């Protein structure tokens, strides 16, 4: 899915084009861990290989946290955090402009943000010097309307699938519905599908 890319920080060509490295950014309590896990579980269900985990200290609601999902069609043994992501998914718009979200993003990498403003504003606020693709969706609005609270993790999965196709939409909907049984699951599935429709690209 990700085109061949190189970055300059590893001089022994350690970048692997077979791996897709996704970094989720959010705040404690917003479901970053769940997002990274659902993405990995979907990839696993497609018989891919995964390593997905959160980078957190003692859990603090509201503190910026990251979640990592590494996916490959081939088996891999790499056990590290994701420093050079192919894709960054931003769950919380208040992180944009306050945290260095684009850190290490590969040349030509993909930014998928929960953002209500214009595309130019998004680019300017993220402030990447390297080339990247930008995509945005007002996930907070969707979450508030569909779930009744601003938890955007599943919504942003819908956006990620729309842009990257890295995992199957229906599969993610099924996993989400199984994880949140009953009405909560149904609402989340609706939110995922809405994000899939409403995500805009530059």
């Amino acid at each position: 899915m990700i085109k061949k890319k190189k970055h300059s920080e590893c001089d022994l060509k350690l970048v692997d084009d077979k791996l897709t490295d996704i970094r989720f950014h959010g705040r404690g309590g917003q479901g970053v861990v769940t997002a990274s896990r659902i993405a990995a579980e979907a990839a696993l269900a497609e018989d891919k290989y995964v390593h997905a985990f959160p980078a957190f200290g003692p859990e603090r609601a509201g503190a910026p946290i990251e979640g990592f999902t590494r996916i490959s069609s081939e088996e891999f043994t790499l056990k590290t955090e994701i420093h050079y992501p192919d894709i960054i998914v931003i769950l919380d718009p208040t992180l944009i402009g306050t945290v260095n979200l684009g850190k290490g993003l590969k040349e030509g990498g993909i930014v998928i943000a929960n953002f209500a403003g214009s595309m130019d504003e998004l680019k300017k606020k993220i402030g990447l010097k390297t080339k990247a693709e930008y995509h945005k969706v007002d996930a907070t609005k969707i979450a508030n309307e569909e779930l009744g609270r601003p938890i955007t993790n599943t919504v942003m999965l819908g956006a990620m699938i729309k842009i990257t196709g890295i995992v199957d939409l229906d599969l993610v909907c099924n996993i989400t519905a199984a994880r949140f049984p009953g009405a909560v699951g149904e609402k989340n599935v609706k939110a995922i599908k809405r994000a899939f429709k409403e995500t805009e690209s530059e």
Partner: protein
Amino acid sequence: MTKASSTPGKRVGMTGDEAVANSMAVINPDVVAAYPITPQTIIVEHFSDFVNDGEVDTEYITVESEHSAMSACVGASATGARVFTASASQGIALMYEILFIASASRLPIVMAVANRALSGPINIHGELTDQTVCRDTGWISMFSESAQEAYDAGFIAFKIGEHPDVSLPVMYGLDGFILTHALEGVYPLDRKFVKKYLPEREMVHPTIPGNPVSSGLLALQNYYMEIKYQQEIAMDAARKVIPKAFEEFGDLTGRYYKNVEEHQMEDAEVAFVTMGALAGTAKYVVDKLRKAGEKVGMLKVKTFRPFPEEDLAKALKGIETIGVIDRDLTFGAPGPALYTDIKTSLYDHKERPQVLGFVAGLGGRDVAQDEFNYIYKQVLKNKGAEKSVPVEWVGLRK
């Protein structure tokens, strides 16, 4: 939640902690006594769900501390029960006293260690020191590279520990967070496998009603030394039992483990040697370096106690220089745990590599490809150095 008996052949998503809990749900130990501590908590939490849901008939003893947890394990194991516990870091430190009693009493308790840095300063993240400091407790000690290995380790640990020639407790580690909290695909096993591989524990002198025996007695100048010597003999017996336990496990599952796993060692001139999750990254980096034409390999030390001196010496024959990467620490010693053990093991061998030491990844600091890249460069730079090269700390803030 993953069911205790899933269909074999299909990978199931589990974190390392869930993998350990799921493996114990299949094993169905007689007794589990444990106290939760990050990053081990999910193991005991998840397992207590299995108890609650009736998926296991384990006696689950909730205790008020790790000291009590290990004490309860000792008591339970002395009756002939199959006993499991799990802990980490400060928890291991608190049960340290009882670890010696478990091994001296020859009780094959199995403990998963969610390897975490020791305080202070307080830290909850991955480091192997909590387990390497237990090297003198008389426990067999192993590490895992992946969630799959952590899953498989429980079965193998009981198999080794309960062998009548061994009869020793076994601990196996999985790196905090990077394994304990990371989701991976794991091939599950089932109760049919347990029946074949891990028959009921048979204890020679169980402490049960109607069969009065004494254990944990006083032994002074008269017998203490003999009892310690017997432990050493048991540890030596484990050297023979462990490869067989690995082989039998491999024959049934297709997953063959080794005390020392070799990766890309053929025609290698230099090699990384490490333990735990770092071994996974090392393998990956070695494959990349090989593609770039570098003659580099790696060794994963899976069994830390009994230390596989002979396996290491054999695997390192013809290698010029090795970089030993320790995610653990000792102060004021010739070097960290793995490094000093390797150097000692090789001393009597005429043909031995130059050994360079690196300390990395303490307190969960990530050891990424860039760090391995740096270590590789340092290995090449210092290759053949006539003076001894001090152990280097990698990834320190400048």
